[in-house]
């Protein structure tokens, strides 16, 4: 009896369609399904865009562009592949194009304060430190190429493996590792120049 009841009462999992099901519904002409997909992926897309671009307003515009491109190209999505891999590919392409076309790096340095978490007094010291790390990152990542920065963000902040990044960017895993190695090296050089107090962390370890 209990088993029968369980079958009749839908769980959260059965109510929420997965990404592939949503795409199928959108393709059949349901605009509400697309709205649901946008709502579901907004934070993921925006976070990646923000970390790559370093500017809240630009990241918002780029995220919108990503979803419009997604809607325009939804027919091209092959459900044999993970939806997020395909979505990340659109995000990285749009973000890299944006970075190449518009030199918005100067804006990136000072525009991140809006997104830093507010804190209680007890946390003040450490929150300032996290805020400082964000500022340091936006400053030293200035020397990276758009592709290097994208790979660094996906690896270190989005915790994606090299193999996943290679799939997203359509390149070899060794290329990803090479970009990561160069990105770290360039950023350490910049830390040494601009933030010697932090560069000591790497020096002490080596």
């Amino acid at each position, binding site marked *: 009896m209990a088993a029968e009841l369980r079958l009749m009462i839908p769980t959260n999992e059965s109510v929420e369609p997965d990404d592939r099901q949503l795409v199928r519904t959108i393709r059949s002409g349901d605009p509400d399904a697309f709205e649901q997909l946008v709502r579901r992926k907004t934070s*993921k897309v925006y976070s990646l865009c923000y970390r790559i671009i370093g500017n*809240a307003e630009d990241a*918002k515009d780029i995220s*919108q562009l990503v979803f419009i491109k997604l809607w325009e190209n939804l027919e091209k999505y092959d459900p044999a592949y993970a939806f997020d891999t395909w979505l990340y590919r659109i995000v990285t392409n749009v973000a890299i194009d944006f970075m190449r076309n518009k030199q918005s790096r100067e804006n990136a340095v000072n525009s991140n304060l809006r997104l830093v978490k507010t804190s209680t007094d007890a946390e003040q010291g450490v929150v300032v430190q996290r805020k400082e790390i964000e500022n340091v990152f936006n400053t030293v990542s200035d020397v990276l190429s758009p592709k290097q920065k994208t790979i660094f*963000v996906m690896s270190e*902040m*989005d915790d994606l493996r090299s193999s996943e990044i290679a799939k997203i960017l359509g390149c070899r895993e060794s290329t990803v590792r090479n970009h990561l190695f160069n990105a770290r090296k360039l950023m350490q050089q910049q830390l040494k120049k601009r933030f010697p107090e932090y560069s000591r*962390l790497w020096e002490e370890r080596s």
Partner: protein
Amino acid sequence: MMSCQSFRANAESREPEVLEHLRKCDACLEYAVSVDPDHFFRAIGGEELEPPGGVDAFTADVMAQVRLRQAEGSVARRFLIAPRRLAAAAVIVVAIGAGALVYERNDQNVGPTLSRSAPAESRRHVITATKPIVETYQSQGATIVEIPSQGSNDASVVMIFDDSLPADL
């Protein structure tokens, strides 16, 4: 979330639980960075951010853009249908024109010196004009018959019967 003790024991790892602790526990941040300096930048990742104005406003903006593009797309499709009709009409016109040309060419092959619109009388005149014109005639065995004309405007007809004349004269 894992305890600080477990975190410090596995601080060099990149396991999701370790990274989650790194990003949430301020007390362990400095220790983690001292163990692995690459944790320095990893500490600012992980958290999912919201666009300025919130997810609802963002979604509404995206859907408005999508609807706008949908509307533009349907207008473009309508424009796309009209050229197709125009192209079909053009094909018909070209076909008719080509047919007329072929017909005219075939007609010209029948009589190359004549225009199709030339009246039948002039055609007859031109054909007879190719024959030699006889102004004087002398023959011993010929019979000449002149048909009397009705008036000064009427053409005078003269008939010559002669066995020695060529057949096509």
